[in-house]
């Protein structure tokens, strides 16, 4: 690889790390601003001023905020996310399994949604302004416009209640066979696919249509290439940067935005975990999950940036 790419990629990664640090500050500060503290939350009704003071001393809550921040950050960097107050369990251990579940669900939703969106986008461009294009756009828009809980319940109604093909509650456990696991996540994955499909599809369509105006597309047409070959071979490679961008945004959504879908299908993922602990005001868990979501978001966007840089032949092959 040539030097400008290495430099640009290094820049992006450095920026990403910086951004993540800034986000960690915000998350930490945010949880500090909320009324009440961990000690109050732990002791609850039984709190007396003495016991509160003792516990605060014990938890180090009397230290200045920036010391507590660095203590927390130091723990995060070494893999120690602290302990959940509500259950007393180590957060890192309980998150691990759930993060894996969320990634599993996101992966399969993406594995269907991304290729499908791009192929539909290509087809929409091929038959642009015709009825096929309008049908694809219309359906995709409709599926995005419905709130995800609505889609979720519609899916449950038909596939779990009426025809009983897939389970309506997506219970998964350690050591579950792959086939059963796939069956369990079928409905939430379908709901997620429907939610993210339209955005990616429409962006693909718009990005390619933009490129279709270029002189080189005319050149390709004048070589006698079929309409679809023109789009696939000549338009698509040049539209890839914006498409990757929107794909990554949606992948990030699949991981950090699945809260509602996970709750509907009672899927033991990060979203469910977050919701549980928000209701319990379990600040360390909320901080940890928030930070993980931020990290996912930022790294996927860095990947999008890097992919766009690599997709540019001018940077890949300098003069």
């Amino acid at each position: 690889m040539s030097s400008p790419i290495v430099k640009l990629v290094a820049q992006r990664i450095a920026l990403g790390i910086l951004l993540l640090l800034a986000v960690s500050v915000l998350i930490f500060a945010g949880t500090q601003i909320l009324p009440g503290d961990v000690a109050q939350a732990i002791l609850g009704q039984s709190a007396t001023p003495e016991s509160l003071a003792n516990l605060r001393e014990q938890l180090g809550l009397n230290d200045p905020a920036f010391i507590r921040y660095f203590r927390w950050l130091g723990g995060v960097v070494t893999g120690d996310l602290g302990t959940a107050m509500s259950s007393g369990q180590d957060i890192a251990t309980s998150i691990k399994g759930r993060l894996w579940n969320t990634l599993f669900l996101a992966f399969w939703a993406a594995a269907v949604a991304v290729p499908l969106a791009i192929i539909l986008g290509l087809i929409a461009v091929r038959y642009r302004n015709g009825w096929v294009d309008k049908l694809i756009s219309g359906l995709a828009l409709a599926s995005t416009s419905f709130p995800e809980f609505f889609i979720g319940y519609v899916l449950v109604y038909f596939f779990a209640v009426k025809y009983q093909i897939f389970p309506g509650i997506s219970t998964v456990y350690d050591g579950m066979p792959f086939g059963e696991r796939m069956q369990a996540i079928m409905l939430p994955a379908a709901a997620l696919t429907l939610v993210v499909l339209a955005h990616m599809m429409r962006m693909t369509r718009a990005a390619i249509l933009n490129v279709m105006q270029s002189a080189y597309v005319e050149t390709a047409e004048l070589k006698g290439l079929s309409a679809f070959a023109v789009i696939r071979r000549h338009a698509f490679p040049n539209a890839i940067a914006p498409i990757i961008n929107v794909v990554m945004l949606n992948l990030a959504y699949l991981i950090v935005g699945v809260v509602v879908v996970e709750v509907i299908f009672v899927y033991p993922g990060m979203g469910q975990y977050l919701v549980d602990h928000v209701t319990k005001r379990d600040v360390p868990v909320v901080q940890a999950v928030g930070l993980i979501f931020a990290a996912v978001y930022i790294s996927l966007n860095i990947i999008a940036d890097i992919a766009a840089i690599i997709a540019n032949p001018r940077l890949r092959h300098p003069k």
Partner: protein
Amino acid sequence: MADKQPKSDILLDIRNLRIEATVYPPGEPPKNITLVHDVSLTLEKGKVLGLIGESGAGKSTIGLSAMGYGRGGVRITGGEVILNGRDILKGGKEGFRKLRGREVCYVAQSAAAAFNPAHRLMDQVVEATLLHGTATRAAAEKRAVALFKKLSLPNPESIGERFPHQVSGGQLQRVMTAMALCSEPDLIVFDEPTTALDVTTQIDVLAAIKDAIRDTHVAALYITHDLAVVAQVSDEIMVLRHGRLVEWGGTRQIIKEPRQEYTNALVSVHEIEHQEQKPGTTPFLSVKNITAAYGRSHIKVLKNVSVDIYPGQTLAVVGESGSGKSTLARAVTGLLPPEEGTVTFDGRPLANRLADRPKEDLRQLQMIYQMADVAMNPRQTVGTIIGRPLEFYFGLRGRQRDARVAELLDKIEMGKGFIDRYPAELSGGQKQRVCIARSLAAKPKLIICDEVTSALDPLVAHGILELLLELQKEENVAYLFITHDLATVKSIADSIAVMYRGEVVRYGAKSQVLTPPFDAYTDLLLSSVPEMEIGWLEKAIKGRRMASAGN
């Protein structure tokens, strides 16, 4: 082809071709307009027919009809296009696809835009050949390399490995010609293949195209607005105007004995007699030893440039693209503060940066650009556009302002009726005239004209040049006239600066600069300007002393 019947020598026979398009004028119902009115032509195998005319003449549209292609919703609504003995318009989409890239290939005006930036050149060059299955990949690549050699491209063995952005414009244009020739078509449509190139590069590409046509016996439709260029490569020339045939004849007849008045006007377009003015005693604007670069780049775009401009006179700055002529204008106007050197105006130094110059200094230096349509706000009327400097510099309002706008419109030979028009409603020449009026409104001492006629058809450009000269006499305004076109320079300049790679290589009064002995670069530049003379190309190539920079 040694056919017995002479009739079978006809490759392309277009009969009564009619082409229409639907336009959607704002605020009006869509309407059909006819772009080509019943044009007929025939082309024999291995011959070259030049299609010539101004923009809007329908020459590209006719050329593309030979491939059954209509650009942007253009429809072939009548007539026949008989290629190799069959009417291709009856073949449908499938038929078009089979002939495109196989029987007929296309060479576009801007190869830089016509090559896909995402693929290597070789993949694009052999794509049509592979698609139509006329050769294996290995055979096609071998053929491509041979063509690269024939078109005298550097490193013919490895240039195919490169991406379009790694190759210069002149080279790309030749690679595109190789791409067209690679599938061994019967006909190539050349659509202004050298128009976007510098003169010194154009001549090489032109020679390469001409040799390739001769050696491969391919027939060609050569589309251009430049008669001198088409005279070099064509056997016959067809003159078109507004989608109608004006005149069709042998090359010699068209350029030597044109029968139609319009053809005559095209042939004799460039000749403006301009008496050179002697430089006065003191220049009002002096550029002294300017060195400039973009950003923090180490590449100096201007190197130690010094020129003087005298009141009411024209200094023409000539050079190829990348020679730094527009950068000189940017340095003078303060848009690009020079790293070293000064600009003196009326005996005092001008601030380097635009932001540091007082309003009065801004008023004295005005600018006109190449692309008149993007230099105007499309949502303002002509009256607002011309009136703006009147308000800004002189505080004129209301009736006073309108009166002055009308006066300026009169000066640029456009009537009062244009005051309420929008730029989109004007022709290219009219837009440029409005830009001239806008710059004149400030009553400047100097107008910088950056390639102001390059985007215009020759006849329109001629009108603009005459107007500029006329205005110079009336207003005593000086011009810094930037151009790559030497014919324009001869018509308008009093003194000339020839620029090459950021340096002024020759500078002086027009008569002096254009009189031998020349330095090598000026000689190359002068000898590269196409002349309307059959056989000029071969003579010019033979007489060259240095190779052009674009290669």
